[in-house]
């Protein structure tokens, strides 16, 4: 056999064409990933400077969904902001509602009945299951595991959303919490549905983990990628599972002990290396703890009212002052800072968005890795652009 003819690869005689690798040798290349890149989970842009395929600089650009949520909050009454908080992190409307209700309760000094506190815990833990399942699905999707894990996660998410819909009337924009309690009391059927979901969720996690957690390709893609050291994580204000994956024992459910959480027995999973795999693993383990909390809450749900009888919804005017309330949302510490001047609208309404602040360390995580790794690092930080841009 004769050697294959490769003469067509050679540049035409006398031309100035050079091979590409000669042309760009040693140069840095700036690539704009997004705002319509499918891996960025929304309209998010990363300006990445590359040396070969290695990232040497990364600047996140966002604000494409900015609607000045805080100004809207200052121009409406306290209660009218409640449905707006659903739209911040549209996966976790229940915890957004709770954080806002908690801040207003601190501001006005309202008490919450025991049944409402338990309902809040049940709904927050369902939200955590929903968020972490979706995150695991999206992360696997980002790794190139197209479709299947995400659809498995969405199947479970749909069951939780059905419960939310039957309770609050809306799948994602629940608008459920009120200052001093909750909006509707669930029926016995609904509680039985939650019990059924709780009993079945462990089996789903087992199945999910059997397919993915020990998967060699997944481990090769994520272990050692995007390491976050604990001192940097604390200094940068990183919260939630991303902080705990770096080995910092900081969970507001334990630290602040808000709501009914001190009455439950659960553990806080911590990571060891702070890499992408640990961030995945911490979330899986957190879901298992959430199931434990749900079991206890359903078994011990007290009877009684779901609203503080002194709470006033219409014409609500807290006295002048300010308050900052925070809870452990699925993505991290979500807080609301309110200043009241005694009028029906807050003078200042500020959202402390966890995914916005967690993005501070995105560049540090990605430096030295490849573009393909930047995609999964962003996936493991877990952002929702509705909350980043506000």
């Amino acid at each position, binding site marked *: 056999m004769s050697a294959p003819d490769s003469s067509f690869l050679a540049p035409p005689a006398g031309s100035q064409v050079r091979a590409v690798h000669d042309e760009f040798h040693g140069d840095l290349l700036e690539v704009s990933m997004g705002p319509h890149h499918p891996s960025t989970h929304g309209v998010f842009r990363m300006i990445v400077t590359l040396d070969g395929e290695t990232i040497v600089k990364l600047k996140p650009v*966002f*604000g494409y969904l*900015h609607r*000045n949520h*805080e*100004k809207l909050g200052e121009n409406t009454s306290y209660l009218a902001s409640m449905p707006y908080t659903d739209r911040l992190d549209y996966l976790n409307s229940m915890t957004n509602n709770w954080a806002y209700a908690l801040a207003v309760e*601190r*501001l*006005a*000094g309202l008490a919450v009945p025991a049944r409402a506190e338990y309902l809040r815990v049940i709904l927050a833990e369902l939200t955590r299951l929903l968020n972490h399942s979706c995150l695991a699905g999206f992360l696997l999707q980002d790794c190139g595991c197209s479709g299947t894990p995400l659809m498995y996660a969405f199947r479970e998410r749909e069951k939780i959303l059905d419960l939310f819909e039957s309770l609050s009337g809306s799948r994602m924009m629940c608008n459920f919490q009120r200052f001093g309690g909750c909006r509707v009391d669930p029926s016995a059927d609904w509680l039985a549905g939650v019990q059924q979901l709780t009993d079945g969720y462990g089996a789903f996690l087992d199945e999910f983990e059997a397919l993915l957690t020990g998967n060699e390709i997944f481990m090769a893609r994520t272990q050692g990628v995007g390491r976050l050291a604990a001192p*940097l994580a*604390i*200094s*940068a*204000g*990183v*919260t939630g599972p991303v902080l705990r994956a770096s080995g*910092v024992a*900081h969970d507001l459910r334990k*630290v602040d002990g808000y709501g009914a959480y001190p009455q439950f027995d659960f553990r806080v999973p911590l990571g060891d290396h702070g890499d992408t795999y640990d961030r995945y693993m911490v979330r899986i383990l957190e879901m298992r703890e959430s199931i434990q909390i749900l079991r206890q809450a359903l078994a011990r749900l007290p009877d009684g009212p779901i609203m503080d009888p002194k709470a006033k919804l219409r014409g609500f005017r*807290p*006295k*002048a*002052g*300010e*308050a*900052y*309330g*925070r809870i452990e949302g699925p993505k991290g*510490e979500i*807080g609301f*800072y309110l*200043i*009241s001047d005694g009028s029906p609208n807050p*003078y*200042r309404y*500020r959202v*402390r968005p966890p995914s*916005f*602040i967690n*993005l*501070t*360390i995105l560049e540090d995580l990605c430096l030295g890795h490849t573009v393909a790794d930047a995609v999964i690092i962003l996936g493991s930080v877990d952002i929702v652009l509705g909350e980043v*841009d*506000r």
Partner: protein
Amino acid sequence: METVEQIRDRLLARFPGATVEVRSNPSPSGQHSLLLGAATAREIAQFLRDDPALRLDQCSNVTGVDWPEKEVVETTKTTVPDPAGGPAKVVEQKSRRLEPGCLEVVYHLYSIALRHGPLVLRLRTGNRTDQVTLPSLTPVWRACEFQEREVFDLFGVRFEGHPDLRRILMWDGFQDHPMRRDYVEPDDYEWEPTPHGAVLAKAKRHYPAPAPAAKP
């Protein structure tokens, strides 16, 4: 955690000449704050982070508050004796005073190591127009990086010593600061295919109708 008064006393002993005032909060939340002078704010922040009794290692929340100029009406009562020897008259005098406005930056500090907080710090600019520079606390807590950029973007506070002070939510060419109380939104940003009501009124203001043509 120590009370704000105790922290203030310790700070004043450690930093003689610094301005540290306690701002009390009448709300049931009881989160009182410390108002710091801009000159020593960064050293004080560093001290709060490193002090073994406080160790406020997490700066959770950074935000701005706009306090525009406001007119304060003060009523003073003076007693004027009656020259004729009758009962003294009480004369009320109303005086109007313009209280200067400022931009305020609020920091909520917590300690992850010692599990306490919040300590609320406040910094104030000189006014709302030309003296809007404050020291950046990003060198002390990295968490301030994006949040101070947001305060710069939406309130117009300039942070001295910030590594990358650019707009973050609005686009780079944008001029105003939308979170200020006196911000007026442009009247042509809303577009509707079939405009009605408020949108139509706005559009009329922005694109005034041409003058009627003179009759031939």
